[in-house]
């Protein structure tokens, strides 16, 4: 009797244990909201400014005690997309989340509220809403910031080599500058003129590619999103630029990655130029603050007929979940408005996030770093090339165009073969 009693007791306690475990997992880890508070869940992707973002959220909560905001940050790029998708699929939908461009907007169409009544939307700089504006005038996202890329160069090396970077505007100028620097490699103490990180599909496919195919779509991300095919009219120019970078690059390019390019080679002065954007600034600053502050500049990638134009665009948007409660949506909009249009928010955006603002009414003098300043200048003057690469078929710009460029560099395919294959894959994706 005693034995069977023990046995039963054991089973009972096991089952209780299982039940307790099960019950625990259903409660979520969020801080409990006080009575009457509106809770807004934010799911965002920019790992780089997680701490600063949480700080601004805290400031907002202090000003608005009736709103409680939970922030969740998940790593950049693909991981965010996957994580966002699973949280929607699991029914654990955030109230504010990020969308990258027209294809994300289409996919999450049912979940994106119209934000055209927000103050931030009315302050957004021209062109920064292109990716999220619908034909019926609805605005489904608010731009994070602006980013731009070009050739970032080491001022000291250029000076020593006797090359004036500011006067480089055409392809021929650039070629000559590279050749001049290359001929003095020994004296300048550099490994090569440039570092082409051909391992990074996004550097080639997204950025270099975009510079030369934006004009195919009149710089419009929407036009790119709707196009059945890509003409690649500047295919030869793209080839010429890629060849030039490859010729003067540290070899082998196909195993060279972003961190080698920016940290190991450029920040330490082993190459004179890299093709990158203003987002590399914090990295270079960490490596060598003085160098970052005084010794780097950015010039546009020369495109025939578009000399002096810098590719500037909005990498990401904030979306507000339409399926959330009305009051939560209002609170979400209030937060976004406050972040981008209030004085406290503006100060934070410039000095803590170190963003290039995508909105009017910012004091440009306060823009923190030289690269961002340069990008903002081009953006103000309207000398920009659009970012259309987020309007290509999903993944095309990296996994097709970038990969085909790798194939060409490795000698596995001729340029024409590679580009024909890229075009046909665009067409089959858009069928």
């Amino acid at each position: 009797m005693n034995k069977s009693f023990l046995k039963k007791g054991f089973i009972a306690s096991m089952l209780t244990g299982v039940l307790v475990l099960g019950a625990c997992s259903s409660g979520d880890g969020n801080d409990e909201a006080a009575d009457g508070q509106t809770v807004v869940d934010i799911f965002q992707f920019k790992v780089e400014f997680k701490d600063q973002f949480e700080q601004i959220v805290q400031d907002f909560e202090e000003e608005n005690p009736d709103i409680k905001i939970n922030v969740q940050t998940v790593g950049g790029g693909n991981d965010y997309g996957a994580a966002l998708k699973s949280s929607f699929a699991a029914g654990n939908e955030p109230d504010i989340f990020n969308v990258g461009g027209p294809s994300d907007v289409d996919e999450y169409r049912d979940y994106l509220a119209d934000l055209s009544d927000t103050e931030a939307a009315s302050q957004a700089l021209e062109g920064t809403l292109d990716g999220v504006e619908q034909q019926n005038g609805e605005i489904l996202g608010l731009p994070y910031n602006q980013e731009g890329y070009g050739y970032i160069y080491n001022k000291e090396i250029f000076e020593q080599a006797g090359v004036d970077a500011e006067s480089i505007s055409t392809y021929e100028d650039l070629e000559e500058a590279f050749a001049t620097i290359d001929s003095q490699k020994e004296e300048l103490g550099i490994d090569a003129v440039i570092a082409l990180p051909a391992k990074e599909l996004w550097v080639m496919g997204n950025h270099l590619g975009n510079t030369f195919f934006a004009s195919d779509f009149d710089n419009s991300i929407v036009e790119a999103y709707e196009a059945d095919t890509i003409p690649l009219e500047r295919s030869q120019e793209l080839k010429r630029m890629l060849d030039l970078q490859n010729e003067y690059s540290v070899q082998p390019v196909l195993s060279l990655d972003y961190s080698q390019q920016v940290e190991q080679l450029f920040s330490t002065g082993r190459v004179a130029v890299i093709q990158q954007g203003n987002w590399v600034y914090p990295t270079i600053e960490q490596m060598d603050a003085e160098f970052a502050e005084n010794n780097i500049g950015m010039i546009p990638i020369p495109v025939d007929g578009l000399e002096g134009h810098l590719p500037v665009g909005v990498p990401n948007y904030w979306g507000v979940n339409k399926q959330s409660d009305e009051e939560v949506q209002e609170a979400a909009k209030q937060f976004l408005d406050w972040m981008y249009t209030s004085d406290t928010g503006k100060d934070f955006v410039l000095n803590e996030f170190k963003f290039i603002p995508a909105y009017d009414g910012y004091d440009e003098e306060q823009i923190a770093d030289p690269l961002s300043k340069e990008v903002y200048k081009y953006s103000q003057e309207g000398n920009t090339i659009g970012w259309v690469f987020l309007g290509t078929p999903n993944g095309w710009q990296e996994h097709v165009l970038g990969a085909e460029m790798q194939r060409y560099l490795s000698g596995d395919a001729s340029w024409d073969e590679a580009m024909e294959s890229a075009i046909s894959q665009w067409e089959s994706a858009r069928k």
Partner: protein
Amino acid sequence: MKNKSLSFWLFMTPTLVALALVVFVPFVYGFIYSFSDWNGLHATEFLGLDHYVNLIQSENFLSAIWFTIKFAVVSIVLVNVIGLGLALLVTQHLKVSNLFRTVFFMPNLIGGLILGFIWQFIFVSAFDSAGRLLGWEFLQGWLADPTTGFWGLVILNAWQYSGYIMIIYIAYLEAVPKELIEAADIDGANPFQRFWKVTFPLVAPAFTISMFLTLSNAFKMYDQNLALTGGGPFKSTEMIAMDIYNTAFSENNMAFAQAKAVVFFILVAAVALTQVYYNKKREVDL
């Protein structure tokens, strides 16, 4: 079947429920989704076998399968040969045996991603410097072309996994009765014959296990692939798992990726079951 009592099922329930929830149910869902236009959020249309037809024509998928098979064959052979070799070495009753065992097993304790990045550094930077110093060209430019990418993955996998497989072989080698070896010795068998005719058949069960493990491990590899080559250059070193992931999350083609995953499952299951069946037949009982 006395053990299939009420308490048996009571004890089994938690495990069965967990297994069903995280393995069987998603598996069935995934299977169903592969016939639809599911985009990760909702499915609107039943497409029948469309995805499977496209899949046979998908160059990327076919080349990923081919690459994975090549990788699996080479790494299974290498891992098992090295694993058995190491096991033989550390069962020789040398003084440093225990130290060796620990050292050989250690790579297995490091996560795949970290290993991938460590080896990336070795292949790209260390190999390059060594090659430049010694003037050996074949050490330069690793991971920059498909061939070195392939061998890089094989070396990484063999290095990481041989120690683990070694442990399995050690267990079986130590269980081989000394009398049999001695008897063979007295009968005039030379060391090679002793190994080949006596020890080898007795450790055959270890082959079944080891080959099954290395096989499924090679087929399902993802993190080392991601960290070491990222599938590059131009997708030439992309293995099936990575191709499926990219289809799902970069190209946003969830249902198509699901169809690929189903084919992948069938492939792995078929290969693994065949292998176990044949190896089982060759085992010798004491």
